[in-house]
């Protein structure tokens, strides 16, 4: 039954309804074997339900799910050879750390001795061998997280699922755990599906990101694509701060077009949009504050300024609307009321569908 190879995951036209509420609507995607893919979206978007459907904890209302090419739609969680790390870790509070990790092999019918051996090996793998006899309540949050991962890995699953694994950790530990999870995934070469609502976490850990909103997939792609060329307003806003401004498009060829924003002109991929008025998303760091008004620069007035240690955040009233701008120049802050000139960098500007 145990198959050591990582498995691909394929959802085709999957829908899940609870009564009249549709939690997941007609979702299709493929996750390549051995990759780490993030399901990203706001709460209530259907990402956790999608994860639970892959795990077999929920049954689809319609559609099919394949793991490694096998149709597992009708199988329950017990039969799918998929492991999951829960948001609350779900460590059995009445069992020791070792018993928790040995649980899977035990209920799978292995002898007590063999189950304990593989559990000890798995615990050593996450660096917790010496805590085997503790109870989960005697561990710190990060240690509990590692136990949960060891418990999931001991069965050598073909797919490992993470449901918001870092949400119960404090900020510093979060980055460390994120890197550990990524390192572990690459060392073992398993397929990992990772649910989070934190775009920075998603950007930092994933091979690909699937953004979900209102029960459907909003956009799918590598992290850089999603950040730099979001398809629509929602993705642009969810993948980080974005200024949404009006522009005018004039197509140049079958790929690019000239976009005029205020007095500025840039050549951008036209993404199939028609000539005329378009929406443009501009990342806050894509707007540069230049000292003196020059030709082709936007003029603006600083409304509010905030010092955030590593950068300054400004709200600037300009002729194309109020803009949110970040600047690394913390040593030369601008005061509210100052007049500034603005120009645009080459990256972080994209046309979006309304």
């Amino acid at each position, binding site marked *: 039954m145990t198959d050591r190879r990582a498995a691909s995951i394929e959802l085709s036209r999957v829908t899940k309804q609870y009564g009249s509420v549709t939690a997941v609507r007609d979702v299709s995607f493929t996750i390549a074997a051995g990759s780490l893919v993030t399901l990203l979206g706001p709460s209530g978007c259907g*990402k956790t339900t999608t994860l639970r459907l892959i795990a077999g904890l929920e049954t689809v209302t319609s559609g099919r799910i394949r793991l490694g090419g096998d149709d597992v739609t009708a199988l*329950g969680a017990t039969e799918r050879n*998929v492991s999951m790390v829960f948001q*609350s870790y*779900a460590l*059995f509070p009445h069992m020791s750390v070792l018993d928790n990790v040995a649980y*899977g092999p035990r209920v799978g019918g292995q002898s007590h001795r063999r189950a304990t051996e593989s559990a000890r090996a798995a615990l050593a793998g996450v660096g917790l061998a010496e805590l085997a006899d503790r109870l989960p309540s*005697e561990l710190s949050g990060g240690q509990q997280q590692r136990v949960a991962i060891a418990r*999931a890995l001991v069965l050598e699953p073909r797919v490992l699922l993470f449901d918001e694994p870092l949400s119960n950790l404090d900020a510093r530990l979060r980055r460390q755990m994120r890197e550990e999870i990524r390192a572990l995934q690459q060392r073992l070469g398993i397929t990992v599906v990772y649910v989070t609502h934190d775009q920075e976490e998603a950007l930092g850990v994933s091979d690909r990101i699937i953004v979900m909103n209102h029960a459907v997939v909003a956009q799918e792609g590598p992290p850089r694509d999603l950040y730099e060329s979001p398809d629509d307003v929602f993705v642009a806003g969810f993948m980080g701060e974005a200024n949404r401004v009006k522009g005018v498009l004039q197509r140049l060829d079958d790929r690019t077009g000239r976009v005029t924003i205020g007095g500025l002109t840039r050549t951008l991929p036209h993404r199939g949009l028609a000539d005329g008025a378009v929406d443009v998303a501009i990342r806050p760091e894509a707007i540069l504050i230049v000292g003196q008004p020059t030709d082709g620069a936007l003029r603006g007035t600083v409304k509010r300024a905030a010092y955030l240690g590593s950068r300054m955040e400004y709200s600037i009233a300009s002729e194309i609307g109020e803009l949110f701008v970040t600047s690394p120049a913390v040593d030369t802050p601008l005061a509210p009321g100052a007049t500034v000139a603005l120009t645009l960098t080459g990256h972080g500007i994209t046309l979006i569908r309304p």
Partner: protein
Amino acid sequence: MRDALRRWAVGWGLVGCAALALLPWYATSDGAGPGKLQLLVPGLTLLAALALRNLPSRLGRSVLGLRLMVLGGGGFIYIAAQGWALGGQPGMGLGAAVVATSLLMLFAIGLAARGFFKGDVFVAGAVVAVTVLVGLFTFYPVARILLGAVQGSDGSVSGGALAERLLAAKIWRIDCLTGGRSCGVGWNTLVLALLTATTTTALGLAFALVVTRTGFKAKRLLRVLTILPIITPPFVIGLGLILIFGRSGLVNQLMEWAFAVEPSRWIYGLPGVWLAQTFSFTPVAFLVLIGVVEGVSPSLEEASQTLRADRWQTFRRVSLPLMRPGLANAFLVGFIESIADFGNPIVLGGNFGVLSTEVFFSIVGAQLDQGRAAALGVLLLALALVAFFVQRRVVGGKNYTAISGKGDGGRPAPLPPFVRRLAFGVALPWAVLTLSIYGLALAGGFVETWGRDYTPTLRHYVKAFSVEWSQTGIIWSGSAWRSFWTTLELASVAAPLTAALGILTAYLLVRQRFVGRAAFEFATMLSFAIPGTVIGVSYILAFNVPPIELTGTGTILVVCFVFRNMPVGLRAGVAAMSQIDPSLDEASRTLGGRSLATLRRVILPLLRPAVVAALVYSFVRAMTTVSAVIFLVSADYDMATTYIIHRVLNGDYGVAIAYSSVLIVLMLAAIGLIQLLVGERRLRRAAPALTPLPAGPTA
């Protein structure tokens, strides 16, 4: 998986065949009966089910499932139908029961094979089993009592018979208003229930306020009060009241001695029963209202005070309105307890009859009118159900206190001085009175004859519990031993069954989602509401005749205990299971644990306190209940409580009191012992840190 399914099917098929061949089909002494031919059908059904093993696997689960469902379901319906349709058969025996069970399980496996219950055989089997059991032992008897109520004395069904019985003058006359002797039992029941509900709610609130909102030192002692009604047989209060206020009670004797006042009999009737019920059920209201008062978030009261409201305004405009649904709930609980109460009215009622006692007298008294008993039972049931539904609405509707689950700090506001004095002034004397009634009731067992001769004696204990040694061994020569051992035996059999059924049902309700779950929940909850007297009568009507003939056996008492007390285990299980993070189950499932393994290794160990509570409670309730069992006891199976009731009705108070005291002590010992045995392991380990999470998907 497919093979596991087939293994289950073959297993149950073999069990059924073995039972058919080896166990007596009928419950007669030799197991034989007419109509061996009828057994051919279940036999063939089982063989056909076994043959399904050879069904080619390409036909798949769905076909296998459908065939199993048809065979199992059909076979079961056949057994039931021929049992009820063909007269002249003796009652069904062990063989029939096992064969019917295996057919039902085949049906459940079929359901699972067709994808119901997520294909889980264990869950499918458990749901089918619980449904059939609750149907057979709760709803079938209730249906029989409804039928009994509309059947005329000649057995014909007519609405006229019901109308005539329900509108009888004896139930609804209002003579007492116009100076006549007494009112109908219907009015009596209603008036008594309203009075009792009012006083228990008021007293319960006073107690709850004293315990939770004042710096009262002896809170522990007041909490003890809440345990008393659980461990006392329901007529002990009545006995205590007779010893104080009865014709030869302390008060009357004092009045006669001091003022030469003629001894009065006022305690026998409405005032006495009301007083006894108030004593008996105030602790119940107290228990309900502690939770309500504690549930009022202190931060709301603090907010009120920062908005310049004084203590009285805060109490009047914030705290009290927040408690209102809880107060309504306590009132309805008191109402339901009162109409279902049998022990107090039968001891103290005298000429003041209520529905529960009237049901009893029409079936065991000189009248022996089953139709009338059934009609009165239906009336009682209707009253209880109405109160039950209103209560469910109240509790389900606006439960303010449950909104803020997070304990936001802050200290509860102190009570306004007036409310504080009132609460103390009411609660403390009442607590003293309650304890002294218990004290007197127990002391009554150690004197010659209460009211005439107060010489200390152990005579009553010797009479009830004497033991002699002879060459052949111990002779239990006391008059109470027989019923004592019977009670102990039946309660010990019933307690684990009750706990198991209750916890299993709780697991299905909290942790499984399946078609018909709402109806399933409704049915199990409904059996809460049925008064014991109604259950007693309906069991007589339902199980006195074949095909299920149980009256006069110990089995019917055990069955009665299990289904009467199962809701308690259910409630404990539901409450505890809702506290366990559902992702623990899910973690177990993704790790390869099937539902049975998950239940056994993860959920049950975490439910240990609830299991203990269910065990203790069902054991104790089996020992102390009167209302239902008084209909079901027989010469061979007499119970402690019914034995005591009969002693009381004969005026033999000494033995009754001695026996009651022994029961109370025994109950305390039982609670302690079970705690020790089952709770031991939990003490060694740190309390589990459970994270309550809302059920269902979150993102």
